[in-house]
């Protein structure tokens, strides 16, 4: 039988080290809502979401109470809206109408975010894809809970540079459309390469077309738990360090697995995957940067950071894979600058630059996430940043993403406040040399060769 020490260890993780289940995300297929009339589509979409997800929040709360583990977010992901609205939406306004319907449905069922205002354009854009992409700035400014993601490339198809160029413009335009709220729209917009179909985390979640009608995906988290465990290994060698991370990751993931199974059983929806990502929050102690410090770096960004992050995430996966029957989603380290106090400190101390963050994405980080950049950064430069990140993903056969926020009216050294889970961020300098000629060439970057690895 379970003993008092084990019980105390678990409860200490929950109460003092911020162990939580970050999100239960219900993926809902909207393929059966497709129609040629936009009003019919909106009506069907609203009904399907509010029926399928009506018990999601209540069930989440029930599980929280019975196991005493916080489930921070209950969310929904849907079939990419460009597919759902493809035959009905004749102009950008029609897509915005769909976005408003999604927002209304999200509010009705009480979820805090709904992801899937998306288009998958890794090789080419259909007319509908392009309309959706062009509608993003308005859609994100008139809705509150809708999140958008665009997949602009993959290892198999190469990079769609037309889409990369367009997304640079859309990120900039979204910032302008939402400048009253510190450009919050950009915090709900992600540009991916190799986007996974079953990611439960926002803003990049969508319900891929390879998925079943409905599915439960769960994201666990517990950077604080890993950090506390590592504090006891100070001065020990890498073997001890890695073992400790692995064991801790196992324990954290087991909780996620339990919650996922319970949610799946109670909602009558099959269990999809557990996403083994370490996701920080602005809360003190809930920080991936603090883990890097516990590993032995003065600040993230110091030489050694990429290696430390690589080992950290590999051990998290090794521990987590054994704890769960199905692992998927992003399963990488999230290093969103604004959502991690340790990262903010590192930027303020001058230790961390965008270039170093980019290098970290080569090994396991999911991307340039929640980085505030000067408002006068050009759309071409943002496209260049997206192209660089996407190229890393394409060549390394991994998911990479860009979620940058050009803060209109603010420059380097100023601070932007998003509030809540999104936190606040110091504005980071961007290399200002031009890449216009490069991003304006048009066309595609061909898929990479998969042999002769180096």
């Amino acid at each position, binding site marked *: *039988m*379970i*003993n*008092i020490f*084990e*019980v*105390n*260890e*678990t*409860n200490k993780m929950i109460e003092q080290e911020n162990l939580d289940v970050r999100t239960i995300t219900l993926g809902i297929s909207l393929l059966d809502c497709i129609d040629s009339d936009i009003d019919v589509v909106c009506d069907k979409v609203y009904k399907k979401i509010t029926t399928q997800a009506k018990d999601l929040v209540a069930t989440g709360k*029930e599980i929280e*109470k*019975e*196991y*005493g*583990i916080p489930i921070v977010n209950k969310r929904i992901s849907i079939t990419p809206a460009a597919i759902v609205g493809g035959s009905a939406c004749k102009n950008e306004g029609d897509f915005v109408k769909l976005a408003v319907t999604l927002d209304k449905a999200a509010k009705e069922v009480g979820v805090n975010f709904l992801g899937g205002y998306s288009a998958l354009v890794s090789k080419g854009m259909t007319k509908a894809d392009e309309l959706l992409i062009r509608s993003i700035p308005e859609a994100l400014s008139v809705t509150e809970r809708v999140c958008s993601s665009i997949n602009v490339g993959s290892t198999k198809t190469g990079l769609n540079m037309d889409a990369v160029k367009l997304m640079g413009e859309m990120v900039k335009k979204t910032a302008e459309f939402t400048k009253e709220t510190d450009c919050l729209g950009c915090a709900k917009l992600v540009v991916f390469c190799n986007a996974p179909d079953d990611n439960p985390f926002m803003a990049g979640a969508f319900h891929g077309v390879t998925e079943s009608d409905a599915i439960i995906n769960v994201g666990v988290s517990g950077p604080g738990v890993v950090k506390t465990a590592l504090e006891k290994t100070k001065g020990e060698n890498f073997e001890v360090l890695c073992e400790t991370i692995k064991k801790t990751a196992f*324990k954290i993931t*087991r*909780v996620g*697995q*339990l919650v996922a199974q319970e949610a799946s059983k109670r909602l009558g929806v099959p269990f999809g995957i557990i996403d083994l990502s370490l996701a920080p929050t602005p809360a003190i102690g809930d920080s991936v940067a603090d883990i890097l410090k516990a590993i032995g770096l003065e600040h993230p960004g110091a030489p050694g950071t990429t290696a430390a992050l690589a080992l950290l995430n590999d051990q998290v996966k090794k521990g987590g894979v054994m704890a769960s029957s199905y692992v998927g989603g992003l399963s990488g380290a999230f290093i969103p600058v604004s959502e991690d106090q340790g990262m903010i400190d590192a930027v303020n101390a001058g230790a961390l630059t965008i270039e170093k963050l980019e290098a970290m994405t080569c090994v396991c980080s999911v991307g340039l996430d929640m980085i505030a950049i000067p408002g006068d950064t050009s759309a071409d430069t943002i496209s260049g940043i997206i192209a660089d990140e996407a190229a890393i993903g394409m060549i390394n056969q991994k998911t990479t993403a860009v979620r940058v926020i050009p803060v209109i009216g603010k420059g380097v050294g100023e601070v932007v406040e998003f509030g809540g889970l999104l936190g606040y961020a110091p504005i980071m300098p961007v290399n200002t040399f031009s890449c216009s000629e490069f991003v304006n060439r048009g066309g595609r970057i061909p898929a990479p060769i998969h042999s002769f690895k180096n």
Partner: protein
Amino acid sequence: MKKTIITVVGKDTVGIIAKVCTYLADNNVNILDISQTIVQDYFNMMMVVDANQASKKFGEISDEMTALGDEIGVQIKVQQEEIFNSMHRI
């Protein structure tokens, strides 16, 4: 059988176990095991109970026990045993 774990943590005082046990008896919850330690005046108790025949719903018992804890000046948590089993047993 589904088991429930009750933990009581807080400053030691007279009658903590008595009050918790009385509440459980009143609500038809059967105590299977108790372990308890006191470290530096800090009371730390874990109970394994069977709440399957309880006269109230799990959520209600949980809320009332939390309230009882506030009354005594200790923290009481009621959790299903599975969370500990999944974390500590392969």
